């Protein structure tokens, strides 16, 4: 029998050696349960796990853990995201216990966007611990059954621990080392920032493979389909550490009026197929921002369906 860290669907799929395919769901700006269920329906059967963002871009939304519970009811494997911006170590540990108590089995540890971008820029931030310290803390809770202060936990949480990586952010030469730090801290899987420059990502993965990091951790490459030329430009200029090659923008433009979205999907599908063949890449994380209904189509075109079932 296979030993699992949490036994989440994502962990099982990865351990069985399948190429994983994960999706994302941004909770609504309200207590709109139906909105979550609707997004869940689009994703169901198409992905192995669904990331649920934690006040993404520092905008208040339904809490990640509660949207995770709704997704779980809908039969999905949620990936609970937690950022360091809003909680101190007490709140973090109690939420970690809480999600595990409710059967959530994946967790992604992030620094979080600074609140100055968000809808409450006057807020006081926390940043008691950082994302790497958060990874270590979850691992300690799970593997040693101990709180950060060393005290014993009565029934430790069981979580498959994830972390993020931005291969394109500066200083570039340090990014692979920071990834190594996250893996050393205890990350079981990594989901990268969205990739548009495949050449640079290939170079990055070569370094990852050279350092043997892909053998210590599952690396899922991030993909966000471009819906329009405007979105591509926005990604290229407004999102820190994001690089969108000019030829991609040209391709979207060349598709003609009203056809950029289709071209964007085509590009994403080609990327997924290329990533599938790339050494060290264990899966793809598809962040179809407010485009959940297009996920089934992308999954199908990319040959990601049907999703494997691992018992």
């Amino acid at each position, binding site marked *: 029998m296979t030993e699992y860290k949490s036994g989440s669907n994502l962990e099982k799929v990865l351990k069985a050696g399948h190429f994983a395919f994960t999706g994302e769901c941004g909770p609504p700006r309200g207590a709109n349960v139906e909105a979550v269920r609707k997004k869940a329906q689009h994703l169901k059967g198409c992905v192995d796990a669904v990331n649920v963002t934690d006040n993404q871009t520092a905008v208040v939304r339904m809490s990640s853990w509660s949207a995770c519970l709704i997704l779980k009811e809908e039969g999905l494997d949620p990936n609970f995201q937690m950022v360091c911006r809003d909680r101190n170590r007490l709140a973090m540990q109690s939420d970690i216990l809480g999600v595990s108590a409710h059967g959530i089995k994946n967790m992604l540890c992030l620094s979080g966007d600074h609140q100055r971008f968000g809808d409450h820029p006057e807020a006081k931030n926390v940043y008691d611990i950082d*994302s790497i310290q958060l990874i270590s803390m979850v691992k300690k809770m799970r593997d040693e059954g101990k709180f950060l202060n060393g005290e014993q936990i009565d029934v430790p949480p069981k979580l498959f621990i994830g972390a993020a990586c931005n291969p394109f952010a500066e200083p570039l030469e340090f990014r692979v080392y920071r990834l190594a730090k996250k893996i050393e801290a205890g990350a079981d899987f990594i989901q990268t920032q969205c990739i548009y420059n495949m050449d640079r990502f290939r170079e990055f993965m070569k370094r990852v493979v050279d350092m043997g990091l892909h053998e210590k951790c599952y690396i899922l490459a991030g993909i966000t389909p471009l819906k329009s030329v405007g979105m591509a430009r926005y990604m290229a200029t407004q999102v820190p*550490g994001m690089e969108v090659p000019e030829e991609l923008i040209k391709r979207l433009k060349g598709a003609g009026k009203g056809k950029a979205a289709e071209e964007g999907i085509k590009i994403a599908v080609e990327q997924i197929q290329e990533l599938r063949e790339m050494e060290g890449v264990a899966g793809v994380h598809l962040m179809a921002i407010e485009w959940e209904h297009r996920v089934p189509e992308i999954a199908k075109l990319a040959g990601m369906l049907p999703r494997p079932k691992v018992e």
Partner: protein
Amino acid sequence: MIVAEAKPIKEILEMIDGFNKILVVGCKGCVTVCNVGGAKEVAILASAIRIAKKKKGKDVEVGEITLERQCDPEYIEELRNIVQNYEAIVSLACGVGPQFISERYPEIRVFPGVNTRFMGGAIEHGVWAERCAGCGQCVIHYFGGMCPIARCSKSLMNGPCGGSNHGKCEVSPEIDCIWDKIVRKMMAQGRLDELLKIRPPKSWLTARDGGPRKMVREELVK
């Protein structure tokens, strides 16, 4: 030094509305160095108050004095024979000064004339930048001599985050990404191995989070 900036004159005038005998108290410490609360700024504020009050047809008496420091009781004591001549004091020291004055002279109203911003230094004439968060446990030697607690927007001990953008912070292009600087300096010094160590969570007990702080040095206590 402690870096402060002048409160808008309008705000100060609103504070002291209704008072006609006002003493403006400066400080020869940090606020003199950052051009906000020394004898010169005391004279400017006093003059501005006189003009504004006169404009409103009020007859005022505005006194000016600049103390050696406002964070030492012995200098605050110098106000002893002066305060009774006034109804209100505007202190141009950092947040410490007006509190020391109002503790010493509970009968008089004390107003802050400056906003205390941060602990930092002048990086050029007229430009100051934060350098220290006063966390009470200095760790800059692990980070190439730069403080990620004060200078990283997220106080990361294991940075840089994914928002580092061409040497600038995701929060604003006006803010340097200190982790970019730390990484480059440490790599140039051949100290990558030190950066690869995971820095454990910091104890904030010695920071403000541990409650208001007080320091006693027995060998100095009389």
